[in-house]
């Protein structure tokens, strides 16, 4: 049973009150579903201090379509809600797959997408998907809202572009229609997502791979690739993308992409896997991704 001297958990009645509280207490930290922070608390590693429970910030929940064909996902949207959102299943299906891979049902019922992003684990299963879907984040504080591209948000191990008093408010996903022919309602992207862990369920990733690719006849019109557990943060494999973009998916292009991917990642040996295994599997996943097209 954790000792709770020195901990405060306050529950503001609205988002406005929560932001005011965070502004008045610059050291305070937000508290969402609790599925990460309560583990750290039990382990004795949670810093004492003021925590702001976001449970009554209804503005931060839910999935909504945007007029330009995109999607917004409130930061407090749970993994269960993400799994069951029809718009996500239709156009951003890897997000539903990643949500289903995140812990068991009980964790998915409480864990939130904003909390998962702010926990900043390089082994998280959803952030690679957000990277290939070209997500942005709205960050809100008492002094306003700013939008940042998700590619620029994670700056180093557990380092984020998040200022004191600022919350992740929502994730914004752009339209998946063909930018050169947006009147065509068919989603031209082909998605590939695979998490490799020790077991099929309830395992933290050794390697997680998300990719999306759009062909224009025989050549790759555009491609985005991201990985988890191979660097201090989740990363976009931009060099591997560059090796494929504008080319036919022939053996030469794939070999170039494999080399670019292998030199663009920096996996480590740890309790879950080895650097060598992770590098090998990352390349194998790239090969499976392009073979599916």
């Amino acid at each position: 049973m954790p000792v709770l001297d020195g901990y405060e958990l306050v529950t503001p009645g609205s988002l406005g009150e929560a932001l005011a509280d965070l502004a008045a207490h610059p050291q305070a930290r937000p508290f969402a579903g609790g599925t990460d922070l309560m583990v750290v608390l039990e382990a004795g590693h949670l810093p004492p201090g003021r925590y702001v429970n976001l449970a009554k910030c209804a503005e931060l929940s839910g999935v909504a379509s945007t007029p330009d064909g995109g999607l917004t996902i409130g930061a407090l949207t749970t993994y269960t809600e993400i799994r069951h959102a029809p718009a996500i299943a239709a156009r951003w299906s890897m997000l539903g797959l990643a949500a289903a891979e995140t812990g068991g049902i009980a964790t998915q019922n409480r864990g939130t997408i904003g909390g998962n992003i702010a926990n900043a684990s390089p082994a998280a299963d959803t952030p690679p998907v957000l990277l290939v879907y070209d997500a942005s984040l709205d960050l809100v504080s008492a002094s306003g809202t700013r939008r940042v591209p998700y590619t620029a948000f994670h700056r180093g191990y557990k380092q984020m572009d998040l200022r004191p008093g600022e919350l992740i408010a929502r994730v914004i996903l752009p339209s998946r229609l063909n930018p050169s022919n947006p009147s065509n309602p068919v989603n031209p992207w082909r998605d590939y997502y695979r998490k490799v862990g020790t077991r099929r369920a309830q395992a933290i990733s050794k390697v997680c791979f998300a990719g999306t690719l759009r062909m224009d006849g025989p050549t790759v019109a555009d491609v985005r690739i991201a990985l988890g557990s191979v660097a201090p943060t989740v990363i976009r494999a931009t060099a591997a993308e560059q090796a494929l973009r504008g080319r036919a998916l022939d053996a030469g292009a794939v070999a170039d992409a494999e080399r670019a991917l292998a030199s663009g990642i920096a996996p480590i040996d740890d309790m879950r896997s080895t650097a060598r295994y992770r590098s090998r599997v990352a390349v194998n996943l790239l090969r499976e991704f392009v073979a599916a097209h």
Partner: protein
Amino acid sequence: MIVNSIINGRRTPLEGHPMARLLDVLRASGFTGVKEGCGEGECGACAVLVDGALVNSCLTPLAHADGASITTIEGVANQTRLHAIQESFLECGGAQCGICTPGMVLAAHALLSRHPDPTDDEVRAALAGNLCRCTGYMRIFASVFEAVRRLA
């Protein structure tokens, strides 16, 4: 803080630190069917239903129980008879040492209340967050399908 919650259908105030684990507060209030296994959300032994949704009470701060309707294993049976899921676990050998059983039964309950006729994969996914070190799981899966048959 004192939170107003409904436990197993009865209005029950719970008192404790707002960051206290719901697991500890429930056990201190006599609901000892809620078991502590790992204490870090991996094993599901402490699972309860909060507003009908399966949650791990070791990862739920008391503040999140305010105004909630909570079902523990003590609330699954009625006064005179076990629930069909519990009977099925008895019948099929789904319970051995018993530590995982409350969480298993509640996870099965959460599944069957939404999917009364689940596939094998759906049962496995629904119970993936509940670990058992005795049965090897096959008898637990058989128990869930026996409950499906009894509830049909």
